[in-house]
């Protein structure tokens, strides 16, 4: 190893150690690298004029089309959460499936998978889910290890189920790494990897995980009913009324997520546009809840906009620029104009309601905080990578992976192990921004499928967040759980979930088609 490379390695170690001190992540990463750049340029090993390109590297981050999906998805998730739509969904599912053994537990897994998707920050998701559902589960007599672990697990699950911001970020980074592999590592391919591809690839593995979790809870409930007791419907409820109430709470958010995902996977909308439709939909749903009975303008507006999309999907040519309007097209145009009008009026009314109620401001503030946090880390990680590369660290990593025993698969195993360990200390976003650009290009150049690599990395990290004693999710859940839940409860409960995770990773390695099958 040459001197600059030793500095680069030291910088990586110091960066990780510095993060432990607890200062904010973005500036720790950037600051440590600036210190090392200073040392290196004092030794004449680093050219400080390298930093002149810094603003030119920050600028594309804030103006990249695909990354606009991040604030939009966060907005959607925060809106669903703050308007209590998520809470109601969980409550109603819990009531409805209560009489089934393990029903409440399965509802938690399901809601976690569905709604955690759009926020995608381990801490936030686990905390919300913990506050929302842990007290209820304990009240109904669920076994403490089972209840707490299923919440921790489902809180992390949302990360790999599309549409999640984690997949947006990872997809963007993998896409860049794939181009880098073609450019600098001589990979012969002119394919591009998009965020939509990663969504498609993650769909099946995500569903398999949800299914496996639910199956585990169901099996536990059947084998030892005391651990996940069934709870009959309250005496005075009318089955039909309960069913209707549950459906009313369940269908809109489920439909929203499915519609967003569908529009992206089918290629109707780019991830950014799909996210915007999702955010608008969440706004209209939240506004509908605020509206008194009888005046459901926001709901009509949402339906009108849906009808508009449906009309478009029939293939009618509604382009305003055309000169020849057939009768069908003209009448469809009139209908479309009316729908647009309803959509606009409903959106205006809905926005006003949310504005008066203060919800829009709150949701916007929280979304701004999360967005700011994500992107400042991205800026910090950019500075870190700039210095790391300036010192030749990327070549060192590539060489290290080259010399790993067992060739490509040895290197792959090494990368997975390192990411797993980093997952004890760092959140998804930091690891994605710092590690993926370094390790992915050589792996991809060796012929590993980019989408498959992204999905396996995501599940690997998710497992890491669940693994004692350092797992992120466990820490956060411990912070919000009632005192009777101890750390050892959590550790015991989470082991089966880790086993499920590892089994699914093994499954994906054995059958890569589970990931690649749906792509394109």
């Amino acid at each position, binding site marked *: 190893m040459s001197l600059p490379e030793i500095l680069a390695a030291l910088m990586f170690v110091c960066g990780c150690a510095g993060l432990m001190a*607890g200062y904010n992540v973005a500036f720790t990463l950037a600051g440590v690298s600036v210190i090392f750049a200073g040392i290196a340029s004092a030794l004449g090993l680093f050219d400080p004029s390298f930093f002149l390109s810094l603003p030119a590297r920050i600028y594309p981050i804030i103006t990249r089309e695909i990354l606009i999906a991040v604030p939009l998805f966060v907005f959607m998730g925060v809106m669903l959460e703050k308007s209590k739509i998520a809470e109601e969904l969980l409550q109603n599912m819990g009531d409805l499936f209560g009489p089934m053994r393990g029903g409440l537990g399965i509802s938690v897994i399901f809601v976690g998978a569905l709604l955690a998707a759009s926020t995608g920050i381990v801490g936030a998701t686990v905390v919300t889910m913990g506050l929302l559902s842990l007290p209820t589960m304990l009240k109904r007599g669920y076994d403490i290890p089972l209840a707490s672990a299923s919440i921790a697990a489902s809180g992390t699950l949302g990360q790999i189920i599309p549409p999640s911001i984690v997949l947006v970020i990872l997809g963007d980074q993998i896409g860049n790494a794939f181009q880098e592999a073609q450019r600098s590592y001589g990979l012969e391919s002119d394919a591009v990897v998009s965020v939509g591809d990663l969504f498609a690839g993650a769909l099946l593995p995500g569903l398999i995980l949800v299914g496996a979790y639910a199956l585990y809870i169901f099996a536990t409930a059947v084998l030892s009913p005391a651990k996940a007791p069934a709870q009959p419907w309250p005496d005075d409820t009318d089955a039909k009324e309960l069913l209707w109430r549950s459906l009313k709470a369940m269908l809109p958010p489920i439909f929203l997520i499915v519609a967003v995902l569908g529009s992206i996977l089918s290629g109707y*909308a780019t991830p950014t546009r799909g996210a915007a439709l999702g955010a608008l939909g969440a706004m209209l749903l939240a506004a509908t809840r605020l509206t008194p009975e009888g005046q459901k303008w926001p709901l009509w507006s949402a339906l009108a906009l849906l009808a508009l999309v449906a009309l478009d999907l029939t293939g009618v040519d509604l*382009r305003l620029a055309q000169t020849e309007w057939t009768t069908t097209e003209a009448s469809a145009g009139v209908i479309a104009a009316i729908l*647009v009008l309803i959509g606009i009026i409903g959106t205006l009314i809905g926005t006003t309601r949310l504005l008066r109620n203060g919800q829009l401001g709150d949701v916007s503030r929280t979304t*701004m*905080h999360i967005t*700011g946090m994500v992107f400042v880390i991205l800026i910090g990680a950019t500075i870190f990578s700039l210095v790391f590369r300036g010192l030749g660290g990327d070549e060192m990593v590539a060489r290290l992976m080259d010399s790993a025993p067992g060739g490509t698969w040895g290197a792959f195993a090494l990368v997975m192990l390192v990411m797993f360990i980093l997952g004890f200390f760092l959140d998804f976003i930091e690891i994605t921004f710092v590690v993926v650009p370094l390790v992915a290009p050589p792996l991809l150049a060796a012929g590993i499928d980019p989408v498959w690599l992204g999905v396996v990395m995501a599940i690997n990290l998710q497992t890491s967040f669940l693994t004692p004693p350092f797992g992120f999710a466990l820490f956060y859940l411990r912070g919000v759980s009632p005192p009777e839940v101890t750390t050892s409860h959590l550790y015991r409960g989470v082991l089966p979930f880790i086993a499920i995770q590892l089994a699914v990773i093994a499954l994906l390695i054995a059958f890569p088609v589970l990931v690649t099958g749906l792509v394109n």
Partner: protein
Amino acid sequence: MIGWVFLPLLSLPVVYLILPKQWLKTIISALIRTIDTLHYYLGEIVKWSLPLLVISVAASVFALSIFGTMTVKWLESAFYFQAVIILLGAAATLLAGQHVRVDVFYTNMSETARARVDLISFYLLLAPVCILILWNSQSFVGFAWNTFEGSAESNGIRGVFLLKTLIPIFAITMLLQGCAIALRAAMALNGEDRPERPKGMPSFFKGSSEAGL
């Protein structure tokens, strides 16, 4: 050049730590309040870009994919909303303590230790990074202003130079907010009460005094 203007301000936390004089405390309290209030309201204004972003992008989907009509200016507006949220909202995020920390050890530290981490890290990490960004963006932004750089598209928004100017502004606001937090840390280390925070903001280093601000 710009860096020198900040020097007296940046040295204040350390000066106060060494010289905890009453008159200095008055100045510092006023300074913290000013910076906090400034960034709080900046954040409160900037956050409205988000609903605008949602509606702007959603509207463009309908207009573009159904009616096949859209202006480049409208499409480009999304970048402006996005940039404003990130670069101007970052200081408000720092003020609200929402930039993520690795809190494996931080949560278990004493309040004094946390204040120490924040004070030292400001000088070692945050300030150098912000000054570096500020320093290196001079020519970048200068070039953009020379030509009043606009969009690469002929009928796009002619405001790329403004967009690029947000980068040094980001560095300045982060530097100021980081400094305000370091000043609070210095006050905490001297065992004093800190000025009140804007409403809804969580407190830093609470517990070392009754007021806990």
